[in-house]
């Protein structure tokens, strides 16, 4: 009953966690950061 009352809060937090999971796991983010670090080293 209590969970049902907070259903939308749970979905919101899951969305935030999902974004965090993306930022930590995505190959796109990794490749971008690697490239940015390479460019910074060159500078």
């Amino acid at each position, binding site marked *: 009953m209590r969970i049902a009352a907070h259903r939308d809060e749970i*979905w919101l937090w899951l969305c935030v966690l999902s974004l965090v999971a993306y930022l930590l796991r995505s190959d796109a983010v990794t490749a*971008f950061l690697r*490239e940015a670090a390479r460019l910074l080293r060159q500078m």
Partner: protein
Amino acid sequence: MQDAIALAVIAATWIYGWHVGRLWVRGCGVRGRAAVWCLACIIPTASLIAAVHAMGFVGLFSGRGVVSPITVAITFILVCWAARFFVATELPPSTRMLRPGLGPPAPLRMGWWWLPVIVVGGMYLVFFVDAATGYPTGHDTLFYHLPSAVRWMQQQSLNPLPGVASDCLHENGMIVPFLLAFAKLERLFPLVHLPKALVVAATVFALARFIEVRPLPAVIAAVIALSVPMVVFQSFSGYVDLYATASWLSALLAIAWAMRATTARQRRNLILLAGLSAGVALGARTSFLVVTALLAAVLAAEMWFRPHEGRTHAPAPVRNVAWFGVGLLVCTTFWFTRATMHTGNPIYPIEVKVAGTTLLPGYDMNARFPQRSLGLRLQRWWDYPWHEAKYSGSGENPGYPYSRNNAMGAAYAAFVPLGCLALLFGSFNGRPRTQEEKWQIVFLLIAATAVVLVPTVFKEVLRYALPQILLAIVVAAVLLDRLITRFPQAMLATATIALVVTATIAAVKPAHALAGRIRDGRWDRAWFYQVPGVIDDLPPGARVLNLAAPSATYSLLGGNLSNQVITHPEWETLTGMRVPNTMDLQRLGIQYVFVQEPWPTDWPAGLPVRVIFDNSESRAVATSPAARIYRVEPVGYAGQNRNAVLTAR
């Protein structure tokens, strides 16, 4: 000049056709600006394709080149007039609201929500500037899509290269580049599919509104759809998945409104419209057979959708599918006929095999794509939105995954899988009662087919499932609606961060390419493709054999699009030989041969060719492969001075 004027007439007729389309869909009772606008595009789009196909049929059966902007413009005008006549007689303007109890539309107050819109708009601006100052890109675009369109222009017919089955693909997506090629408007090629991205956004918005999502979350759903890397990259390339997906989504929208129509006539005409749009999609990509069949299944389920109250006509599932089929054939019959005449398979390149016997010849997909165990495929795909590893059909390419083939983006990963799960769990509460709930379930089921199709039938080629991927965003809009209403600030922050991440990563590629051109101060075609400038100076109609990378094919057409290029696979099909030989070079009228490093070592002795260009020592970009152009000499030349370099620049 004549061609340019004819193209202007075609553009004006398209706008007239769009106006006719607007009358058509309003007459069918469709309401909502986005729905009306994107459904109105179906009439001119399908009419233009039908006009080109009509001319194509003449060329197919007579063997003569009759397709030109002038003949297309005349036929297009006639088709649009016919559509206008049909609207005037069949569809008197309807002033009646389909659902009088609905009331006025909810107001749209964007406020700070302009922020994500601006972020995505900025990403598109970077892509636009890069595309507008560059030339077409993308492997498939340069290998066969655009070369086919240019070849049609050169021969003024849509006939495939005789004896080359691989030239028999469905190519509705190349009709506009084909017409632009007459006026040599090559610089517009990278932009021709950009309007389809806008249609996708409008359709996602309209579908979300159709299932009672409020305007603001529907706008955010459209923005998420535009942020998907496959969408933005394909908006500026000749890949046809986005083109076909936009038409397919429009067909789904037309079907959804058809199920709400109050009269049998409105229903029939919307279904006809859906068939036309689905035909545009299927005529652009054969893999859309699967999702087109899903639309037919939805039509057959009319009994389940239609509310009993207010119904003035009986459900007619068989008739629905029949009308859908009639519309479907308008923009596909030409391709089916052409493929059947040249390959014996109307749905070429899809091979149909039953119990080891080939019924319809085509590509053997199992031989074309690597075979992996089902367990491995599921392991790779179950969490794809969050890791976006670059899996392609032909192999694994680790590295930067945002491209025309891969990736869904951060906003998609944050909201869409969970939105689908939320709807799935919510649907366990009981049977859907309202029409909107039923449509939510149907959208969810269609989107879920991607989970099965990508690792199996689609051989892990993600872009084949683009319709389902975008439809999942509509499903997730239901959750977005709830969360944005209850937690507007938290949702705004999450959505903006996610879109900034995706926009930044996606814009790196075009920004890098653009910065390189600015730094070098070189904007010419030969520099862009890193091919010899002499390619642009070959005499019109020069026949060039491309033995280098397949994607060099388009660049070898030259700046005037006047060279005729034979690709290596076409050479192999036409001659049965891998390497050039004197007899076939003469027989096929090949005048030049283009090769890149590594240089071929297996050519027969005495081949009558002479190097006229070699940039091994003089190329400006050391990382690009060196290139050579050989001129084929008359019989009797017998290989004298084959490697004497006469020209290099």
